[in-house]
């Protein structure tokens, strides 16, 4: 017998708490009590797809079923909102191109190091890492540098989109025509990022709660993590930001969303005042007085 779920299957308070806690322990995304309706609405299709009668059964599925890991992956696609666009938060990008990159170039080339590793954490459908690549392409001093831009996200669905690099109008709301002309070409379904930009970017899957995988990405010079930690509670924020700190080279930068701050989260970073924005920086080891 196939059970069909009536629309609006209610989620009891204890079911909400249990499911919420499971999601939290998986990836740090926290749904407060006001989010019960949102969770109920977004997970209804999963109940239906799994032929489950109610959210209690769904919680048991998440906890005990042998496919629980895959299910957790799948609901990340449902639960994370992924709305983004090219050249988002332009004032911060100006700080990135005009101030931070020149500073990094100066420090690194002084050490004879001409590599740059940038991580776009929570990159969603890829607009951010490709934006970074386009901006770097326009910095003449970086010619001959080995640049790696790594975009990661927890949702597998958005990764496919990011790797494909094909975008529609909504992604270009603030993009200048000159960029569109230079770095995109028309293809079925929209505009596709040119190969030279795509070659600069590697898209991969990452749960920011997975410390081992995070370490595997290696050391970074700069991390963009904009509008991601807003989903986390304080404990989760602390955990993720401390891992970012570990992933950054000394003197590396952490760029958060304009409404995000590390106030009350950690004192590991110093806040640098640039002309265009305020950016968190991992202090140089010497400045901290640390050993070798």
């Amino acid at each position, binding site marked *: 017998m196939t059970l069909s779920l009536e629309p609006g299957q209610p989620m009891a308070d204890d079911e909400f708490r249990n499911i919420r806690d499971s999601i939290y322990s998986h990836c740090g995304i926290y749904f407060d009590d006001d989010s019960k309706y949102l969770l109920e609405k977004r997970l209804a299709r999963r109940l239906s797809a799994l032929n489950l009668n109610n959210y209690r059964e769904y919680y048991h599925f998440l906890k005990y079923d042998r496919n629980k*890991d895959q299910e957790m*992956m799948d609901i990340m696609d449902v639960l994370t909102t992924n709305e983004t666009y090219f050249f988002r938060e332009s004032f911060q990008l100006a700080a990135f191109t005009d101030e931070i990159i020149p500073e990094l170039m100066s420090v690194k080339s002084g050490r004879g190091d001409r590599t740059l590793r940038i991580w776009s954490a929570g990159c969603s459908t890829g607009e951010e890492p490709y934006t970074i690549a386009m901006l770097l392409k326009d910095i003449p001093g970086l010619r001959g540098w080995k640049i*790696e831009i*790594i975009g*990661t996200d927890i949702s*597998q669905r958005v*990764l*496919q*989109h990011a*790797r*494909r690099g094909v975008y529609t109008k909504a992604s270009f709301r603030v993009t200048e025509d000159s960029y569109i002309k230079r770095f995109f070409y028309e293809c*079925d379904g929209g505009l596709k990022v040119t*190969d030279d930009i*795509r*070659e600069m*970017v*590697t*898209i*991969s*899957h*990452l749960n920011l709660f997975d410390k*081992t*995988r995070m*370490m*595997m*990405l*290696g050391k970074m010079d700069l991390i963009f993590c904009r509008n991601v930690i807003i989903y986390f509670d304080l404990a989760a924020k602390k955990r993720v930001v401390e891992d970012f700190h570990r992933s950054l080279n000394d003197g590396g930068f952490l760029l958060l969303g304009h409404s995000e701050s590390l106030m009350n989260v950690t004192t590991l970073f110093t806040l640098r005042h640039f002309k265009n924005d305020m950016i968190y920086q991992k202090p140089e080891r010497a400045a901290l007085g640390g050993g070798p």
Partner: protein
Amino acid sequence: MDNPEKVRNALKSPDEELRRSVIDSLRGQDLGDVCEFIFTAMGDDSWRVRKEAVNVFVAAGPSGDFITALLELLRDEDNAGLRNSAAEAVIMLGMQASRQLKALAGDTDPGVRKFALDMMGGIGNAEFVPVLLAALHDPDVNVSAAAAEHLGTIGDTGAVPELLAAIVTHEEVFFRFSALSALGKLGIPAPVPEEIKQLVGQEIFSKVIYDCLGSIGDHTAAPILLEGFLAGRKSARCAAVKAFNRILQRCAPPERRELSDSLRRLSGSEVVPAFIALLDVEGKDNALAEAVTNLLGVIGDARAAVPLLAPYLTERLSSLALNALAAIGPAGMDALRGFYPHADEKLCGAMCTLFGELGYQAGDGLIREALHDPSPLVRRAAVKAAGQRGLSDCIPEIIGLLGEADSEFRGAIISSLQILARKDSVPVRAVACRLADSEQPQHRRDSALLFATLSDGGYLSRLVKDEDPSVRQASVAAIGKLQISSLQGILQIALVDETPDVRMVAAEALGELGNAEAVAPLMLALRDDDSRVQCAALKSIARLAPEEVLKVVRTLLPTARGLLTITCLEVLASLGNDAALGLVETVLTNGDEELVKLALNILSRHDGERIVRNAERLLAHPYAGIRYDTAVALAALPGQKTRAALKAALKKEENNLVRDLMKRLVKGFA
């Protein structure tokens, strides 16, 4: 026993279960008090009651007098059930009954003597061989035939000369049959006396003689077997062919050359069509089909080429037929070319494949034509053959077939282009670029394979970022194979790919690059939740940092399971030093019997003393396979200690297969 009368009455009850339970209740009681009832029950109508009685009797550990009494039951001519139960009990008692059995072999009653020999065969101990050899000359043919048969069962090769002699002197057909079969089982190749070979002249013996020669004959049996190829009865012809093939397989190179020469002399003769007529790939006799296929190749008669297509198209015989066709050489291929216009698509495809595989130059024109054949099957075979033949002028036609190809066909096209790219890379690169821009993931995957052949790291580094995991996987693998160290960073990031197959290949590829800097991320990959990724990472660490890997395995092993433990063991085996073998030894206590077997196998190759140390526990292992392997491993080691361990284990062993092996091994020690 409280009331013998009650037992006696119960044994007369029509209720089978009551009779059985009464016998069961006698278990553990003084045999002197209950033997009468047990013997009665051994003759019961019900096999369940008889079996219970046998078990109760054997479990009582009967002394000599009871065994003698038991053997007396064999004289009961009216009750076959009773005789069989008694025989079963004797076999279960094994060598405890040997003295009485040997005495019984000299009984005046031939029926009893035969029973005694049958039980000796059932027990299967080499100690009975002298008695059986003596019984070969028993005046009763049933007894002498049983003696011959059981000499074969016991498997003492020392009996071969006496069996051969007995066949010569003993003219009874029944005896000769049994003795020849026994020789067949013993299987020690040696010259066979002429008297025996001459038995072939009697048609009734021809098949069994050929079988026997196949088993025990050496190259000197060749002439008689060659004659057998034309024997009147088909069964005899088949036996001769199989026997010849067996001898050919096992004899030393000089003798093999001699036998092959004698076969080659048949080329062009009338024997060949008769031989070909025996080729039945769909028949039940696999050994015959194998023998005919193989020998046709040795004979080298081109007439066999077309008939050999049938075994070539049969998976089990395919490689044998390929060898045979290769041995026949160009004349055979010429025959196939002549047959091609008359063949169906399946055979045409097979011929194209053969022309490619065997490098038949005169078939190139036909391969070119076959690229335009209406049958996809033929076109696919032609594509493959064109690649193997290096026909680079066919590249445009091959590329032209890409559009219509299914996945299997496309695989053949890409494989061919990979080979042909070495001769002419320009058109192959052009098609690779076209495929790389395709909307179809499988085309992009194909392009990765082609760029790998073209050693084009630039394109591969783009494809490694593809949205389709199969493209990423193929590109990552290619980067590893080509050892493009500048792309190591890309491989490291592929270690966090969402698709386990990509992560696994990335871990392998990092090992292939050979850069020790990859060890750190590979160490992290050991924590991957997919065991195949962990295994690949461990193997790569072993390649990149052999001095570190022991430490890594030591950490992994206590919590590892399944595949990862197997990989740990393989790594330890490759190290082969004392510390590594110490870790292998710890796996002998693992709950997974397959892992224990693997550890045993490694230790038996590197340090058998560690098996001796664990022998007692391993020989009492609940899994019979472990006990079996331990026994084999111990038998290969020198020393009294191993023998003592085996003998002790034999007493407790309940599994027939393991017990038989242990018996043979203990006998081998002796």
